[in-house]
């Protein structure tokens, strides 16, 4: 059994959508990035508009107000749930039925941010997010939204081994995934560690060289020669 935070969401068609909720660590990093970006924009606004005197200050106040409250709302609605910080960290906001976030929920979760921030440094939000499986802070609970990891794009695999070998018929999908994951990760493993891991399967696959055999099976799975 894999120990992870993956949640499956059943759709009306009976398909299971895998969603991986993002915890507060990565979300705080994204938030810090967003704060830095906002701080940069605010500085530029004040420097430029202060040249216009009092009228400029008025406009600067309005712009910074918009930036403070509507920066996340704008990006979440227009950029499919990703503020620049979230995009950089590879996470995004969705409604908790997996559909793209809309204006109402996005505004709600971002207004309630002030409560999640209390008493300091998002303490309320962190505690709330540790109390449920989807890592929802109070704003997410009220808005019915959640923050998930972007699915990593499907890579074009290459396993540095030629030839194919049939996969044993009784391997389940998850077991096949384990073989594929091994073949993909083998680039980052030493030859000794590779053969150490692959030998575990030797009693099942009876191959001459289990490392090469597994990679050839991986080739079969992705349809490569």
């Amino acid at each position, binding site marked *: 059994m894999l120990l992870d935070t993956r949640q499956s969401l059943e*759709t009306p*068609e*009976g*398909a299971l*959508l*895998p969603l991986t909720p993002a915890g507060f660590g990565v979300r705080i990093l994204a938030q810090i990035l967003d704060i830095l970006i906002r701080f940069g924009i605010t500085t530029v606004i004040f420097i430029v508009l202060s040249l216009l*005197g*009092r*009228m400029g*200050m*008025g*406009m*600067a*106040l*309005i712009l*910074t*107000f918009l930036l*403070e*409250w509507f920066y996340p709302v704008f990006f979440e*609605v227009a950029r499919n749930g990703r503020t620049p910080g979230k995009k950089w960290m590879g996470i995004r906001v*969705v*409604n908790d*039925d*997996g*559909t*793209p976030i*809309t*204006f*109402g*929920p996005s*505004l*709600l979760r971002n*207004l*309630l*941010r*002030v*409560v999640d921030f209390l008493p300091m440094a998002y303490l309320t939000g962190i505690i709330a997010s540790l109390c449920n499986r989807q890592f929802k802070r*109070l704003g997410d*609970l*009220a*808005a*019915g939204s959640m923050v998930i990891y972007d*699915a990593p794009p*499907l890579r074009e*695999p290459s396993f540095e081994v030629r030839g194919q070998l049939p*996969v044993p*018929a009784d*391997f*389940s*999908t*998850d077991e*096949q*995934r384990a073989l*594929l994951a091994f073949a993909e990760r083998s680039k980052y493993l030493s030859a000794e560690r590779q053969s150490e891991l692959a030998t575990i399967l030797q009693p099942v696959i009876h191959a001459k060289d289990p490392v090469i055999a597994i990679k050839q099976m991986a080739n*079969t*799975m*992705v*349809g490569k020669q």
Partner: protein
Amino acid sequence: MKQGQFEQLYQPLWHVLEMQIVELEKSDGQLKGDELASFASRYRRLCHFHALARDRHYSSHLVDKLGDLVVRGHQQLYRRKQPFFQQFISFIVAGFPRLVREQQAYIWWATALLYVPGLLMFLAILWQPDLVYTIAPPDQVSNFEEMYDPANRTLGAARESDTNVQMFGYYISNNIGVSFRTFASGILFGVGSIFFLVFNGLLMGAVAGHLTNAQFTETFFSFVVGHGSFELTAICISGAAGLKLGHALLAPGNFTRVESLKRASKIAIQLVYGVIIMLVIAAFIEAFWSSNNILLPWQKYLVGGFLWALVIGYLVFSGRQLRGESASAERGSL
């Protein structure tokens, strides 16, 4: 069926669907008419293929590829409409005042929480002037005195227009920020909203009482009467939205607390839309009308009274069906 056969046979189908999804994901997608209509059935076939591929233990690479398409297809097929921008006008004309009337229990509570402490503080300060210092520090009090001292007004000269713009910006960022906080803190079982309403009420009463003692009534009340209509009402409504969140958590009824909170928030956030619009109007009046010194006090009271009547009349009457209309609608449905 072998995986190779399966892929060969059906790959064209999911390839077509993938193109459709990519097109739908663009903000200016070109999918129209029949193509669009075929999307739902193609998507359901894809779900079928995905389930088959899983069940037959085809290679995980194929299963994951189909799974990825299912997720993206689901997002496109079930994405919610964004009614806010489309229904903006009908929301202002009918939706918002109807909602306010529907939620009037919360509105009355919020109104009481703002005005009752305010009135009590006002009377208390008329009776014991020094009580003002229990609410505001001395430098803030003298600041208020200075602002509304008739002697500091250069009569006949309006503020320069760029100062007005500066104050407009200040009112926008300050007042809307306050109302957002009043709303949001309601999720703490209503405590936050109650605190902000009572505190703002007390401050308002203290300032009004103190300036009445100082005989600055005319400058003060002629200044606040205009924008007060929109601003105070908006603060009440945002407090009411916050109270609704708190009440949903305290008394969820037959729902779980989270579900009850979700349902309440869906309504509360619509009240907040209206509050934002009202506060922008209030800031506009405050910066460009209330501060104008050329106008005589009676003119300001007159317009202020008109604005109060407008706000109350709007919330009470706008969006109601006329008697004749509803009768004909009933006939139509029969």
